[in-house]
C-alpha cells in the first residue's frame, strides 16, 4: 500500500489549489434559492473532480480520493471562503451515494458514484409519501415485476430538489402478502423517466425546492434494484443511518459546509449590535449560551463520531447527535428572535430582518427533515436504553390486511 499524503501537506495543497481554482463565496448559503444553483453546482463539482478534490473519503476506483475524514475536515476548513457545490452535500454526497457505496453492484457504483463525483449526477430521496413519513415502512408506492422489468406506481412527497436531480432512491412495496418490513425493495429511479410527473411545492420560506412525484407505470430495468429484492428495509436502514449522520453532522462525506445548520454567532453579535442591545446583560447571556450550544454540538459530534467508529457506541447512537442538532438549530433561531425583538417580524426598507422571520417560520424543518426528532427519541429510548418498543398494530400482519388511515 502506498503512503497517504499527510493531512498537513494535503491541507497546504488544497489551500493553494482553492485559491487558484474557486471563486470567493458570496454570502451565507441557506439552500438552493433559485434554479441556477443546480447547474452552477454541477460545474463546481466538476472543477473539484478535475482538481482531485472530489469525494475525499470515497474510494479511488469510483472517482474519489481514498483519503481519511481528517483530510476531509482539513479541506472543508480551507474551503469555507470559496464558492462550493453545497447542494451536492445533502442528500447526494452524504446520504444517497454512501448507500450505493454500501449496497450497490460494481456497475452501480461505477455509474452512479463516478457520475456524482464528476458533477454529472444529482441524487435525491424518494421515501416519504402523502400518507406518512415517520412510518416509512408503511408506504404504499408499489413496484410489480413484469418479465425482467419492474413497473412503478404511486406517489412520493417532500423530496427536496427532485426537479433538478437525475436519480431518486425510491423505496417501494414489492410484496403485499408479507408483513410491512419484509415486502420492500429499494430502487434507483431516473427522475425524468417516462411516467414520472414532478410537481413543485412551495414552502413557507417561499422556496419551491420541495417536490411531489407521481409514478404512472414507470418501467425500471432489473438492475435498478439497490440491494436485495424484498430486502428493502435493511437497505433503507443503511440509508437512514447515513441520513442521521448527515443531519447530525457526523457524516464523513460532506464537503465544504460549515459545521452549523443555521444562524451563526457573528450574526447574533451583529444582530444585537444592529438593534442596539449588545450591552444588555441578558442579551450577552443569550449570545454566550448560543455560542456554547454550537461548541457543545461540535464537541458532541466529534466524540460520538469517534465512539461510533471505534464501536464503543452502537449505530443507533447517531440519533443522539441528530436530536441535539435539531435542538441546537431551533435554539439558535429562538435566541435570534429574542435578541431581535420587533425586527424579527418587521423589516427595515432595505430588508434587514427579513431573513430571520423566515428562518423562524421554517424552524421546525430541522426536527422533521431527515426523520423527525420524535423518531430519534424513539430510537434512543428503545435501541440505546433498551426500553420496550411502541405498540404497533401492524406488527407481523400481512401488509394487505393492515388498516391505513380513517
Amino acid at each position: 500500500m502506498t503512503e497517504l499524503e499527510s493531512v498537513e501537506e494535503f491541507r497546504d495543497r488544497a489551500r493553494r489549489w482553492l485559491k487558484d481554482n474557486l471563486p470567493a463565496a458570496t454570502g451565507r448559503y441557506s439552500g438552493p434559492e433559485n434554479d441556477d444553483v443546480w447547474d452552477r453546482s454541477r460545474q463546481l463539482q466538476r472543477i473539484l473532480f478535475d482538481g482531485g478534490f472530489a469525494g475525499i473519503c470515497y474510494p479511488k476506483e469510483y472517482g474519489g480520493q481514498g483519503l481519511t475524514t481528517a483530510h476531509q475536515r482539513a479541506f472543508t476548513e480551507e474551503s469555507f471562503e470559496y464558492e462550493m457545490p453545497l447542494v451536492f452535500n445533502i442528500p447526494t454526497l452524504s446520504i444517497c451515494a454512501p448507500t450505493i457505496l454500501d449496497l450497490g453492484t460494481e456497475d452501480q457504483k461505477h455509474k452512479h458514484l463516478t457520475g456524482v463525483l464528476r458533477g454529472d449526477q444529482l441524487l435525491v430521496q424518494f421515501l416519504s409519501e402523502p400518507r406518512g413519513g415517520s412510518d416509512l415502512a408503511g408506504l404504499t408506492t408499489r413496484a410489480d415485476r413484469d418479465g425482467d422489468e419492474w413497473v412503478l406506481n404511486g406517489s412520493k412527497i417532500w423530496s427536496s430538489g427532485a426537479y433538478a436531480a437525475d436519480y431518486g432512491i425510491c423505496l417501494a412495496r414489492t410484496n403485499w402478502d408479507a408483513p410491512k418490513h419484509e415486502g420492500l425493495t429499494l430502487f434507483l429511479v431516473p427522475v425524468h423517466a417516462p411516467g414520472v410527473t414532478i410537481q413543485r411545492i412551495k414552502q413557507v420560506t417561499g422556496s419551491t425546492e420541495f417536490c411531489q412525484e407521481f409514478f404512472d407505470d414507470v418501467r425500471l430495468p432489473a438492475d435498478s434494484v439497490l440491494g436485495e429484492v424484498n430486502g428493502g428495509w435493511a437497505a433503507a436502514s443503511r440509508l437512514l443511518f447515513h441520513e442521521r449522520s448527515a443531519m447530525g453532522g457526523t457524516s464523513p462525506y460532506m464537503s465544504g459546509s460549515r459545521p452549523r445548520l443555521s444562524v451563526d454567532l457573528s450574526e447574533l453579535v451583529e444582530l444585537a449590535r444592529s438593534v442596539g442591545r449588545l450591552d444588555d446583560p441578558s442579551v450577552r447571556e443569550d449570545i454566550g449560551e448560543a455560542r456554547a450550544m454550537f461548541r457543545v454540538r461540535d464537541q458532541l459530534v466529534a466524540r460520538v463520531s469517534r465512539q461510533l467508529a471505534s464501536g464503543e457506541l452502537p449505530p443507533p447512537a447517531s440519533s443522539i447527535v441528530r436530536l441535539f442538532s435539531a435542538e441546537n438549530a431551533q435554539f439558535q433561531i429562538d435566541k435570534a428572535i429574542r435578541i431581535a425583538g420587533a425586527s424579527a417580524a418587521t423589516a427595515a426598507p432595505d430588508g434587514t430582518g427579513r431573513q430571520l422571520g423566515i428562518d423562524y417560520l421554517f424552524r421546525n424543518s430541522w426536527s422533521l427533515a431527515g426523520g423527525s426528532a420524535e423518531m430519534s427519541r424513539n430510537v434512543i429510548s428503545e435501541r440505546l436504553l433498551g426500553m420496550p418498543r411502541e405498540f404497533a398494530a401492524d406488527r407481523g400482519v400481512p401488509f394487505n390486511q393492515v388498516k391505513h388511515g380513517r
Partner: protein
Amino acid sequence: MTFELTADQRLFQSTTREFLADTMSITAVRAAGETEAGFDRGWWRRAVELGWTAMLVPEQWGGGSVSGRPLTELSLVAEELGRSCAPGPLITTSAVLAGLAAGGERFAEVTGEVVAGERIAVWAVYEPGHGLEFPVGATVPDIGTRLTADGDGYRLSGLKDRVEAAGQADLFLVTATGPDGPVQVLVPADAAGVTVTPTWTLDLVRRTGEVRFEEVAVPADAVVHTGAAAAAALEAEIQVAAILTAAETVGATDRAFDATVGWMFDRYTFGRPLASYQALKHRMADNKTWLEASRATAAAAAETHDDDPTGAAEVVSVAKSYVSAKAPVIVQDCVQIHGGIGVTWEHDLHLYLRRVTLGRALYGTPEEHRRRITDLITAA
C-alpha cells in the same frame, strides 16, 4: 469521561472507584453528613495517597500526573466523587495547588504538605454580594478584601464567603486588592484576626463557610502572586475549579440517570413498566442526549486545557455553563419520574440533586459563564 483513556489512566480510575466504593458508600456519605466537618481528615489523607492532589504539582515537589494529562486525570477523580456524592475538598484544593504551583520554589514545602494531605489549603475568592470576578486583562474587578503595607509586611482585611471546607482548612489562598493591584496571599487559618463561620450548604457533606480577616498580619513571603501574575493565577484557578466542577456534575448526573432508567423497568403502572410509556421514554431520550453532550463538553474542556491552558478559557466556560445548567434539569426530571419516593429523605436521589445544585452555584453560574463567553468573543 471514560473515552480513549490510556491503560494507566484506566487503572487510576478503577483504583479511585474502588477506594470510594470501599470507604464512601452512600450509607457512609449519609453518616459523614451527620458529622460537623462532613469528612474525616484521616480519610482525606488516605484518599490523596492515590494521587488525587499530585496532578497539578511539579514532579520535583512531589507531584506528577499519571500520563502528563493532569486535568483529564483529575477529572476522572472528580467524576467518581460525583458518582458517589463523596465529600472532600478536591476542587478547592486543586484550585489552590494550581495557584501555588505557579508561585515558584518558595511554596514547594507547603505545596508538598497539601499534596500529602497533611494540611488542607482552600480557595477564598468569593465576596458577599458578588459572583465570581473573572480577570479582565491584568486586573480583577471589585475585590473588596484589602492588603495594605505594614512595616516589612502587610495587613489583610475583608470578608470572603462560599469558602469550601472553610472549617477544615489550615490555609486560605486569598484574593485581595494590594498596593499595586490584585494579589493572592496564603494565610494560615489560625492566624490572629481570622474567624471562620460555617454557613449552610445544600450538599450533605460538602461544606462552605464565611471567613473574616481582621487586620491579619501577613508576612511579605506569604504573597504568592501580584499584579498581572495574580490575575493570571486567578484565571488558572478558576479554570481548574470550573473543569472539575463540570466533571463532578457529570458523574453525579450519570448516576441519577442510570438509577432512573433502572427504576423505569422495575416500576409498573396499569400493568406495564414506566419504561414503556412514550411520554417518559422521550424525556429520557432528551436527558440521555443532554447527558452525552455534557460528557463531551466536560471532557473537551479538560482535554483542551491539557493541550494548551492558555487557549482554554472559552471552552471551559462553555463546559461549565452547559453542564451546570443542564444537570439540575436532568436530575429534577429523574425525581419526577421516580414519583413521590423521589422527594423523600430516604431515597438517595436528593444527594445527587444536592451535588449538582451546588455545582451549578459554585465557580461561576451558567449565567456568569455565558456572559464571560460573550466578553471573550467580543473582546477578540
